[in-house]
Each structure stands twice: as C-alpha cells, then as structure tokens.
C-alpha cells in the first residue's frame, strides 16, 4: 500500500487465502473450514452457499472475529489490502465498525431489547464518525426512511419488540450501513422471514448495491435467493469449497456433483404427477470431515469411483472457467433423476369425502376480563375502554379431502394454517363450525369419545427438535401407539417396531437410540413412523420438511409420497413453501389471515387466473427478480373489519368495497374457486405491474 493513494480498482476488496478453521470439541479437533480461498472485488457480490454444518458461517465469523478462543484459524484474510491478523484490536474494531457492516440471521435476537432502535443505529456513527448524538439520531432516521420504512421517526423511537420481523431486519441493515462501509456481510438475513418480506429485503439490497456500490458477502442455503442478488457464488460442503464461479454458470451448469445434487433436489414450482419424485442426495453431511483422506462428498456421490477416496481432491478449472473440486468435472452428466413411479393417477369423487370441514372458525381469547381494559387520555380526560377482541386465527373455512387425496395448505406465518391443522385433529377445540371425519362430526364429540378417530388421524410436526420425547428411546416411542391401541400382541411389538423403522428406511437397530443421537432427518423419519404406527387414514403434515436442510427435505418429501401411495393415505400438507407443496399435493388451498383465498387443483392454482395473494406468493418464490409489488391502497384498515382480509395489501384494490364487504367465491371450474371482488374476466387479466 503506497501512501494515501487508493488501491487500484483491480485489487480485491476481500481476499481469503487458504483459510482453515478448526474447533476443539472435547478431546477432538473438528475441521470446520479447510483450505478455502476466494476473492471479492470492490462493488462485487459473492454468495457462499451451503447447508448447515458446511462451514459457511465460520468463514464470515473469521472475518468478523467472532469465533472465540476455541477456534484455531490459519491462512490469510486480507481486507482492503491489509492482513487482518496483523491489526491491533483497536484497529480491528475500527475496521469492523467503519469499513465492514454485518447483518445476521435472526432479527429477533440481534437487536438489543432494552435500547431504542434509533439509538442502536446511531451508536456506530457516534463511535466511528465522531458525530454528536442528536446528529447521529437524525441520520439514523434518514437511513430508516431509505430502507423503505415510512414512519421512520416513530420506528426510530421504538423498541425492538414493537416492530415486525421485516422492519427489524431493515433496521439492522440500516445499522450495518450507518458508517458507509465498503463491505456488507450478510449471514442468512432472510431465512427467518416470510417469503414476501424476503423479496422486499432482497430488492432493497439490490437497490443499495446499485446506489452505494457496497460489496456484498452473502451467506445462504437458498440458491434461488442467491441468484437474484449475487454475481459470483462459492459452494461449500463439509468444510471445503467445492465450486466457485459466476452465479449464472454455476446455477445453470453446475460442475461439482454436490452442486448438481443440490440444484436437482429443489422442487420445481409446478404441479407434479403422482409418480414423480424429487432427485435426492442419499446420506447426510459428515459432521467431522477429513478432507485429507479423500473427497468428502464421495460417500454420497453417484459418480464416485475408487480413485475419489484415495487422495485429497484438488481444485481444478472447469471448461467454462469456474473452479471445481472434482477431477471428473467436464465429463459428468446431470444428477440422476429419480425414477418416476409407475402409479395410476387417482380420481377423486367430490361426494366421497374423508374429511369435511364446514364454516370452521377459531378465535383465541386471551383472558379478556381484566387485561382487556385500557386507560388512556382523550381531550385531557382519562378514558377507560375495552380493547376489541382478537381477530380469529381461522375464519369460516370450508373444504373437504377425499380418501387418499393430498390437500396442500400454503400461507405465510400467522395465517392460521397450523391452527387449522390442529383443529382438524381436535388438538384445539374450534370456536364454531363442524369437522366431519368419515361421516361423523367429531367437533361435537366429547374428548373421551374421540379414541377411534384418533387412531385414524395423526400428525407430523415441523419442529424436529421437540417432536420426540428426549427421554424415550426410538423403540419406546414407536411401541407406545401399538400398546395404547392394542394393535399387536406384546410379543410381536418389537418385530412391528422394526418393520415401522424399515418403512421409513431406518435400520432396525435404531430402536435403541435416543433422539439426541439422531440427525434432524432421522428424527423426522421416526416421527413419521410414529404417526403411521396406528395405521391411520389421514395425516396432517405441519411443515414436516421446513426445518431440514434442502438435501434432506427432498428425501422426506419422497418418503411421504411413497407412504401415501403404499397406504392410500390422505394428507393435509401444510407449508409456506409453494414449490414443496406443489410437488406432493393433488389440490392446493392458499390461506391468508385465517381465510382461504383460493382453492383448486395444483395445476389450476399455479396457473392464472390467480387470487392477488397467490400471485404475489408465486412471484416471490420464483427465481428471477420479481417485479415490484405496489403497496396496498391503504395500510390503515382497522383490525377485524368485515371486508376482504387481503384488502390492505392488495395491488388490485378496487375501492371501499374491498374493505367493507366479504369477497364472494368466484368459481373458475368444478374444483377451482377464488375469493375476490374482481370478477372472472378481470382475474384472468391480472398480472403484477399491469
């Protein structure tokens, strides 16, 4: 670095060379990152993609000095030409605040709950830019407005718990950019957010890049997101960099088998036939990889040969210029597709229903007696009033499911889909409406009389960490339903448990294991086995794959499909991920704020005409940069107003009718209905941005 002259534009902003990070766990050393090298040019945008455990977050941690004393770091990290390791702590601090900004995954814990938001954004400016606090607070407010927050003054004075997730994340981005850094590191910034909010944040980041020229280091497991925002992508697997190159060529022509597998296992956003299965990567990522012994991916690789496991794999250059850690690159074909199962498409008769839901509603009533009263001052006089009751979580829902049919239920967080699932199983009692199972209205039955129903209807949960009792072994957990319903003789139970394990493709020996000894995917399989132990006819799957890594998701979805075919099971498949739902479902229902906006076969829902909300969901989930979604006509609608629940956000808002009258059900075909004030002709024309 010569004097005060700025570095020439071809020098990389951030250069990582042979970065190796090892952690000590107990007596062993774990390789978290092995010999990773890449460079980020000024104004560029690089994504590090990998599943949990791949080491991607550790790379960011090394730059930010987060790793803690238990980590051994070797290799060089150069930022703006300087070697980070050579800096004094004070210099490092200055660099972090001033030149590098960071945004983390969980906006809910990243903001200090005891300090006002504006203060948290202003602080780095006071520290690093030497501004006085009032001036810094003023700039913080401006920054919030630039992030697209309209009521910036209010938000700046607010505490974190008063803001929504999307707002919090915007505030965090504002704080990261407060001092005008040249590098912004983002570690899974949108994973905890709804897909529509995610789309907005990504658009924001895009705009910021264009306007300020800040470079991005974006860490994610989501390949679709990466495509929209980044120029280059580095794929990491089990501590190693396995592919590095331009984002288009890596995503369209992946060279490394793992990249191929990762991309192939993503469900396409299209209706699927009953027999189709997702391409999956068998096995799971090693938790203690030994890259010196051979290719870390070899055990799961369909292309592997003996030579792969003999010596460490080196980086080579693929034909179109990107780096690949596979000696076979260039000669590999696509990831093997999963064979289409030869099965007849079932035909469902409208009259033959297994589950029939009519006018179902559920409102959670907080103990509204004492705490509902509020004291406020109006015109200088105190006023005591009663806060209005809450909005129903599930609001007048009607649909039916035939035996052997899969109904997918799609919606964002808070739409009531989980509540609906639990209502169907009577794990929650409805406020009004009826639920008929096999002809009998189970909503009217007292709890004691539900036993025969319980056998036939089961549930699989999202949270793999807590859906199995940590104190029960797998065998004990699976035996319990058998014992409870007296399905098998005591002598036969062990054999049946092993059969159940086999059904979910786990070895019989697993019955001795405890949940904490299993991986996430394995635990979910045990949960599925437990649900199927009673030989049910109907299973509610509440986001069963959402908490799992992408490659494991595909195996679980395939497993559910196989079981569905083998036992003629009916599912209510709940997810926020439209693509996954489309893969498995015969029909799809789209839910928003307790109401079903659109229902139809998978093909019908995924094609126009759309309900405005469905349209937004599809656009947000697609890979290309979605067109801007205009804000709804008015955001000030009162909670619990009688009109359409989507009125506040709808880009095709018609006027006061949307806010005052509930939308009629527009029937598009025998199976397809949309709840909207727009008539059929208008709906057929609807396109975002039109």
């Amino acid at each position, binding site marked *: 670095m010569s004097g005060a002259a700025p570095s020439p534009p071809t020098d990389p902003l951030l250069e990582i060379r042979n970065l190796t990070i090892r952690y000590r766990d107990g007596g062993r050393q774990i390789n978290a990152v092995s010999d990773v090298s890449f460079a980020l040019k000024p104004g560029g945008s690089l994504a590090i993609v990998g599943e949990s455990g791949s080491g991607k977050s550790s790379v960011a941690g090394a730059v930010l000095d987060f790793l803690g004393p238990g980590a051994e770091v070797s290799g060089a990290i150069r930022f703006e030409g300087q070697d980070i390791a050579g800096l004094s702590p004070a210099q490092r601090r200055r660099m972090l605040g*001033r030149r590098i900004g960071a945004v983390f995954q969980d906006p809910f*814990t990243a903001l200090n709950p005891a300090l006002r938001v504006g203060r948290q954004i202003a602080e780095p400016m006071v520290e690093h830019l030497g501004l006085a606090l009032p001036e810094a607070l003023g700039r913080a407010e401006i920054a919030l407005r630039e992030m697209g927050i309209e009521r910036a003054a209010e938000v700046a004075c607010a505490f974190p718990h008063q803001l929504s997730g999307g707002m919090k994340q915007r505030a965090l981005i504002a704080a990261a950019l407060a001092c005008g850094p040249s590098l912004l590191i983002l570690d899974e910034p949108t994973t905890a957010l709804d897909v529509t909010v995610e789309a907005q944040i990504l658009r924001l980041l895009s705009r910021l890049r264009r306007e300020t020229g800040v470079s991005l280091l974006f860490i994610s497991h989501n390949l679709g997101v990466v495509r929209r925002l980044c120029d280059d992508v580095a794929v990491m697997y089990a501590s190693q960099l396995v592919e590095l190159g331009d984002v288009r060529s890596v995503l369209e022509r992946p060279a490394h088998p793992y990249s191929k597998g990762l991309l192939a296992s993503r469900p396409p956003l299209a209706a699927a036939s009953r027999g189709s299965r997702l391409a999956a990567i068998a096995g799971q990522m090693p938790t203690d990889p030994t890259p010196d012994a051979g290719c870390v991916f070899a055990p799961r690789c369909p292309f592997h040969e003996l030579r792969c496991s003999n010596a460490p794999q080196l980086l080579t250059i693929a034909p179109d210029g990107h780096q690949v850690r596979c000696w076979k690159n260039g000669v590999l074909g696509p990831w093997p597709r999963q064979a289409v199962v030869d099965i007849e498409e079932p035909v469902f008769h409208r009259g033959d229903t297994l589950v029939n839901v009519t006018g179902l509603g559920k409102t959670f009533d907080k103990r509204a007696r004492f705490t509902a009263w509020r004291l406020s001052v109006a015109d200088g006089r105190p006023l005591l009033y009663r806060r209005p009751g809450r909005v129903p979580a599930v609001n007048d829902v009607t649909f039916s499911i035939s035996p052997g049919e899969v109904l997918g239920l799609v919606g964002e967080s808070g739409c009531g889909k989980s509540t609906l699932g639990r209502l169907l199983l009577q794990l929650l009692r409805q406020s009004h409406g009826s639920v008929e199972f096999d002809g009998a209205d189970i909503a009217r039955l007292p709890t004691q009389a539900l036993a025969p129903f319980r056998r036939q209807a089961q549930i699989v949960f999202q949270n793999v960490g807590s859906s199995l009792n940590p104190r029960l072994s797998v065998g004990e957990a699976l035996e319990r339903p058998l014992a409870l319903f007296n399905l098998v003789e005591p002598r036969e139970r062990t054999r049946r448990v092993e059969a159940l394990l086999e059904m979910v493709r786990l070895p019989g020996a697993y019955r001795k294991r405890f949940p904490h000894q299993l991986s996430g995917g394995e635990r979910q399989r045990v949960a599925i086995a437990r649900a199927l132990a009673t030989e049910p006819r109907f299973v509610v799957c509440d986001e069963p794959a959402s908490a799992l890594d992408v490659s494991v998701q595909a195996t679980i979805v395939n497993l559910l499909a196989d079981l569905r075919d083998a036992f003629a099971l009916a599912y209510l498949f709940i997810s926020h991920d439209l693509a996954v739902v489309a893969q498995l479902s015969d029909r799809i229902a789209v839910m928003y704020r307790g109401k079903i906006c659109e229902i139809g076969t998978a093909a019908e829902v995924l094609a126009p005409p759309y309900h405005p909300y469905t349209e937004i969901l599809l656009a947000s989930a697609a890979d290309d940069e979605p067109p801007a979604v205009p804000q709804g006509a008015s955001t000030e609608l009162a909670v619990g107003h009688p009109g359409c629940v989507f009125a506040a956000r709808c880009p095709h808002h018609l006027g006061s009718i949307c806010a005052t009258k509930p939308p009629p059900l527009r029937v598009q075909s025998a199976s397809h209905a949309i709840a909207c004030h727009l008539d059929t002709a208008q709906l057929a024309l609807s396109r975002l941005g039109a």
Partner: protein
Amino acid sequence: MAAYVVQRLGAAMVIMVAMSVLVFLATHALPSNAAALILGQYSTPETQAALEHRLGFDLPLPVQYWRWASHMLQGDMGQSFEMERPVAPILWDALGRSAILAVCSMIVVSTAGLALGVVAAVWRGRWPDHAASIFTYFGVSLPEFYWGLVLILIFGSTLHLLPSSGYANLAEGLGPFIAHLVLPVSTLTLTLLAHVTRLTRSSMMEALDSVYVKVARARGLPERLVILRHALRNALIPSITVLAQDFGFLIGGIVAVETVFAYPGLGRMLVGSLARQDLPMMQAAILVLTGVYCVANLTADLLYGVVNPRIRYGGSIG
C-alpha cells in the same frame, strides 16, 4: 403499562387482605388461654369468662376479624398483654430502628452485589470470578446469626473495636450511632450479598452471551460500551426481581440478627412476643412486617414495569 399497574395494585390489595385473615386465624388457633395470661394470679373461671367477654373473644370469628381489621386500619393495634400498654407506639418505634438496619443493608447489598456480579461475569473464568465464587459459596453456607457471632467474636470481644450489642440514638452522636450499626449491617449484608452476586453474575453472563452483544461488537463498539450500555441494561432488569425477593430474606435475617445483637428492633420484639404469647403484639408485628414486604414487592413490580421496555411500551408499530 397502565393495565399492568392496575393489575399489580389489585393483586397487592388482595394479598394483604388474605394475609391478614391468615394471621388472624393462625394466632387465634392458639391453644393457650389468653385471658388466663392477662389475669395472671387473679384468674378464676368467672373472671376469665368476664375478661373474654370484654375482649370480645366469645364473638363469632368473622366478627372478631372485622373488629380487629378495622382497628388495625385506623392505627389501633390493641393493647399488649404483657406490657399493658398500647402496641402501636412501641411498634412504630421498633419499626423505625429496624428500618435503619434494613435500608443500610439493602443499599450495600444492591450496590456491592450488583457490582460484584457484573465483575465476576465480565472476568468470567479468571481470578475475580473464582474469588467471587468462593466468597458466595461461603456466604450462602451459613446462616446470618452465625456470622453475627463470628463478627462479635472478632470485632467485639477480641479486638474490642465495635460494640457487640444494643443501639445508640442519633441524639447520642453520630459516632456511637454508626458504631452500633456496623456489625449488624455487616452480618445482614454478608449472606444476601452472596445471593445477589450469584444471580447477577448469571444474568450478566446471559446478556454477554447474547446475539445483540455479538452484534454490538461486530459494529466495532468499544468493549466498555458494550458491557455497560448493552449488556448491563438487560442484565439489570431481572436483578430487580432478585432484590425484591431478597428483601423477604432480609426481613428474616433481621429477626435473627436483632436477636444476636440485642438490637431493639421489630424483629426482636416479634420473637419476644411469640415466646410470651402476647397476642396483640404478635399479630401487629407479623402483619406490619408482612405488609412491608408486600409494599416492597409492589414497588419492585412497578419498578420492573418501568425499566422493562416490553411492559412500559406494550403494543406494536406495523
């Protein structure tokens, strides 16, 4: 926030009423014959019956409770059986003296305990932490009266530095006043200090391990700012609850400490009245001490509501 305040006030009142009922019932379950006690050598079945009638002991319990409670609220605490004088003035005097002990102890405990806990958390794993650990271990392993005796032994009997009992009025000079306070306050403080230090340490450690602290460091903020402004503010919020709980232990400690040091406070009066079955004094002392605790808890709850932004500013913006 308003709803929270109203809720807490309501709860406190309900508790006071419930408590007074309990105190009344418990003390009226005494098997001993109160009338016989008062009359002493003059007691015969007739005089006892007459006195009982005069004292209202033959009325139905709810009526007796009502009379007792309404008198209490007006400040009339009845007449001590033993001393044959009104209870109220004696009690308030004693309460004042106990209050001095309590206030001094709470001040020391809150400042020193919080400071020590924070230091132990910030220098986790190093010698200040270990020193604090050992200190807290010993602090919680022995009751106050024992420490009191040890301190008397060292400072009173052996070194003759400080008086080992009694109380000196401010009128007698600041020196003697403070000298008589040093040992009792130190005794009270030792045990509580250990408790508060421990809990503050763990809540501070939790704050230091949090994501927002990591984020603050990632923004390059100097460590002292991170600790003092970011971590401490969050760590202190639960400490308020701890201090309130400790006030309850403090009251218990005062009873023991006043006995050891022959300090003429309310605790010592209570023990005396229990031993001598002096009913009105007993009832009044227990009720007042419990009432003080109730008020302390209420104050802590309200303070917590002010300090915790989630309660102070409920609701949401978009």
